[in-house]
């Protein structure tokens, strides 16, 4: 039961995303057409405050629950994969207004459409896994 804290954190994160409307299709449409500051403020604010936390992790001022140093996993390198993969993800995000975490949150709002999105995401992940060795990085 030591992981129950992640369940509670998930509930908290879902409430934050929902209450700030960061799961709304309209908010993402508005973001991609640059007609509002709202989503840029949320993501930008999250990045800025997180950057401060990252410094505190790096200097060891904040350690994890077991007293270990916190080091975010390095992201895999590869220009084509990040840029092209990112653009494919962006296409799906732009049309459906959903990215990874919100798909799970939207299950609580619009069950059937979110299930279809999730099924699609699992098919997409499966396709990637099946052909990943043949793709350029």
């Amino acid at each position: 039961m030591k992981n129950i804290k992640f369940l509670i954190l998930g509930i908290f994160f879902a409430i934050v995303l929902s209450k700030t409307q960061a799961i709304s299709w309209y908010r993402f449409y508005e973001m991609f057409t640059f007609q509002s500051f709202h989503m840029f403020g949320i993501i930008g604010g999250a990045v800025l405050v997180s950057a401060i936390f990252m410094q505190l992790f790096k200097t060891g001022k904040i350690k994890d629950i077991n007293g270990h140093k916190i080091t975010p996993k390095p992201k895999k390198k590869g220009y084509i994969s990040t840029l092209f993969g990112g653009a494919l993800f962006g296409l799906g995000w732009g049309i459906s207004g959903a990215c990874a975490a919100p798909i799970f949150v939207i299950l609580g709002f619009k069950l059937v459409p979110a299930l279809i999105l999730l099924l699609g995401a699992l098919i997409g992940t499966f396709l990637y896994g099946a052909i990943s060795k043949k793709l350029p990085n």
Partner: protein
Amino acid sequence: MDFILQPWPWFIGGPLIAISLLLYFYFGQNFGASTNFETLCTMSGAGKVSDYFKKDWKQRDYALLFIVGLIIGGFITEGYLIPDPTIDLNPDTIQELSDLGFLNVASQYFPDEIFSTEVVFSLKGFLILIVSGIFIGFGTRYAGGCTSGHAITGLSSLQFPSLLAVIGFFIGGIIATWFLIPILF
């Protein structure tokens, strides 16, 4: 209590997302959402088809609980914490979407034109969602992360691949909203 029921402004949302990231790392794990798609594939037996999925999903039990939390949180917020789902959208955006034929723009979180039961069970509506999902799943794995993992965790820890990924997200998102949505609707 009144504050909780109002929509929360961006300057509350940004720091609260950062605090979620802080707690996730404090609890000893790397913050991100899209690796869960992989874990769910592994649990569904995808390892039989590709070695890529031959992983021990039980090591990610914490992440599965996080997802369950996301779902519960969605139900709680939808059911009890949003008495008025109107979105305070830019009037220009409302006009633009109305011109495309969207009805009751921003009167709720999700447009009926994509999310209503009737649309979802039509061929076009189903295809729009399933193909979007496939792009999301394939793209996020190819890029190595999503909005949480790349845009927030990656950018804030100054990782160059994340900057490329976010540029990619916007290229795709702009193509979708500027070109594909006007074609689809």
